[in-house]
């Protein structure tokens, strides 16, 4: 289940992340901001994640650190989809 979430997040990153590097070269803990993700791209990413997983990020989770890496996003998505 977590594996699926991880690869779905990577798919969304490839489409919306606007990274300078190929997403396949970055591991789950790589800093996405270092890899070229802008603040605007992170907002798009957030909206795309909401759409893909049918979740809503509460204000408290609209933090910079949430979108810093695939791992951090996966953790939040798992939390928000828990109990489904």
């Amino acid at each position, binding site marked *: 289940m977590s594996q699926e979430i991880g690869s779905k997040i990577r798919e969304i990153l*490839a489409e919306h992340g*606007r990274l300078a590097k190929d997403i396949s070269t970055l591991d789950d803990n790589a800093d996405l901001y270092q890899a070229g993700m802008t603040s605007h791209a992170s907002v798009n990413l957030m909206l795309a994640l909401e759409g893909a997983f049918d979740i809503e990020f509460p204000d408290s989770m609209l933090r910079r650190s949430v979108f810093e890496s695939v791992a951090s996003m996966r953790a939040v998505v798992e939390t928000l989809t828990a109990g489904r």
Partner: protein
Amino acid sequence: MWQSDSHREVALGDWSLTWTAPRAPRPSFSDGAGPPWIAAAVPGTVASALRAAGPESMRAAPGRLDSVDWWYRCTVNAAPPASDERLLLCFDGLATLADAWLDDVHLFHAEGMFVGRAVDVTSQLRGPGELWLRFAALDEALAVRRPRPRWRAPMIENQQLRWFRTTLLGRTPGWSPPWPAIGPWRPVRLQRRTAVDVQQVKVQASWDGGDGAVSVALTLRTLGGLVARAARLSVLDGEGQVVAETALSCAADEGGALVASGTARVAGAAPWWPHTHGGQPLYTGRVVVAVAGDTPAHLPPDGARPVVVELGRIGFRTVALASAEGDCAIAINGVPVFCRGACWMPLDAATLTGEAEAYRRTLAAVRDAGMNMVRVVGPTVYEADLFHDLCDELGIMVWQDFMFANMDYPEDTAFVAAVQEEARQALVRWQGRPSLTVLCGDSEGEQQAAMWGAPPAAWHRPLFRETLPAVCHEARPDVPYWPSSASGGAFPHQPSVGSTSYYGVGAYLRPLEDARRSEVRFASECLGFANVPEDSVWASARLTEAPRAHTPQWKSGVPRDLGAGWDFDDVRDFYLRALFGVDPVALRSTEPERYLALGRITTGEVMEAAFAEWRRARSTCRGALIWFLRDLVPGAGWGVLDATGAPKAAYHYVRRILRPLAIFFSDEGLNGAWLHVVNERPDAWQGTLRVRLYRDGETQVGAADLALALPPRSARELSVAALLGGFTDTTYAYRFGAPGHDVAAAALISDAGGADGEAYHFPTGRPAGREGDLGLEAQVARRAQDHFALTVRCKRLAYAVSLNVPGFVADDDYFSVPPGGVKTVLLRRAGASTEPRGHVQAMNARAPVRIAAME
């Protein structure tokens, strides 16, 4: 393209051209000691100037045009600008590494032929001067070491062309003439802007199914202390009536320019359709800016004077491209449209453009062929405004590639920025136009990467997946974006998913059935064949007779894939053998005329068979575009029109199968022969479907007539056996005995009496033999001043009857006539002859038949 009446053109002097070694200093123009100068038309290219100067100049010029620097020079003179005027030198397109000087002042160095530039010369141009352009040798630039691409494109001679924004035409030796684009291929203009300098005009039109909206944003600067008081937007219909108006809000931007923006609603806006499906109501937009100021010398004392900015053509329609589950389906105004047509080539390979009349004739031929889409392809150039105007007027959808093809393009910051600017400028030229239907990143880039073995991650390139679509969405949110001409599927060129270059029936020598088996979804290019032209084309190559097939002269007009051991004559020969059971090599050697005659109809028959598969209602095919429309050089090129724009035999086959109201057969094997009837028109059709079966080319053995009502935008399929009643082996699949018939002829006859389509099916094979006497007769009668009717009658089946009537154009050719049938063709005078005289020749007759003189 928008225009302001506050901008006026100032004529430049005549241009001259010469060449020097790369990096040599500017040659002298005045003293006779320098290199020879040639008169050069601007806009134009080095190739077109040499061609116009004559064979001696072409011989004197270096063999490789890319190996030297080319210099253009003209005189410039303009009255000194007043306080409320600016002078701009506008360079709409310079190919490719260009420098410009005004006298000794270097204006700029620019790279890229697809971007226009303007230079303010208000303070520099004081009295007469000289304008110099230098186009640096591209070979020198290509020799610089640069990183290697991840994949190679074999059709392109030098892969490092990927670093330069220039056309691939002239650099693909297999099929384009050896004239690379060099020079001021788009206009060079000196423009005087008075009172108001309109810097940017953006227009967007949208339609919600009932009403339209036109939004504008103009950026302008007033000159000489003048002030813009107000601005109004008007939208006018095709008759010049104002259908919507609004005041624009004006705000200053940080640089001191004024931005006038607003939206006008057009109630009940009439929608634009491709011509196969409806009409083309067109609108225009206009902004009037009221300007006033304290310079009485320029203005009437009582106040504001208007500046009128014409916004250009506007049309209202919606375009949807459905791509879910591997589809690639286009709907216009909510109606699914089968898109068919051809890939567009520049009308003149040397100038990369064409005369107005050539554009009109060629696009009229596109419409007349039942084609509703053309694709402007990546290896060529962005087209002239007139091309797009005509597509808007004639109802021809445009699939527009950006000028990229096959190669691994760089993605460094400077390159990407240059591409964005190129795209923005092109989008301004296309704004408001209803004909723009698809914007496509490049031609075959993903496909080439995949074919070369690059991994799937490399097929998705950010330039074509993110950068270009973002620019497109901003300017034309109403036009779908497609990443590459072959895209979608397990690999980009997989036929059944997304779009593809489909050459299964074609270069890959697949049987005709492959058109169905491949489940082609959308062929952005297909059916590339060496279509044999009529002998009349060779006069344009200054030859008195047609070169024999296979000679070097003949082969110079036949396309080939670079490095392949075969060419497209071989491809055509394969299908000639398959269709007619004839050995092409033997035929070419013993009966060259017959070889060419059968060759002419072979490619037509194959194209007809492919489209008959794709147009069936149950087919998965959403569209197919023939590679390509018109030849670049005389010969058996890929065009269905020859290099002069005249139709080849293949054109007539294509025209018959692509009619918006069409009838055609399919061979369903043990299910028998089926008839397919399509009505794409917005009005219903009423008439009779007639089927006749004949044996031995003459004896009728079966007949059926069915009253048929076809609702608008409908299709039907009918079993021939069911029409005849009982069991008939309509495809000779059961073969219980000798064939019952050798030809089935179907026709749609409207209640008004017109023949609205014909189709033929040959269950035992197309006629390959020749007979002595078909009882063929041909007569002419005058209809009007320059119009005649040619009536052809025959006793026995006349297969693929071709007309030879010099000086006249026929509305059909290479058609069949059933036994005892009558076919009337309209002739229009196009030459000096006053009356039609000539012959008709059936492919299954040994000799032509003279057209009887008029009574």
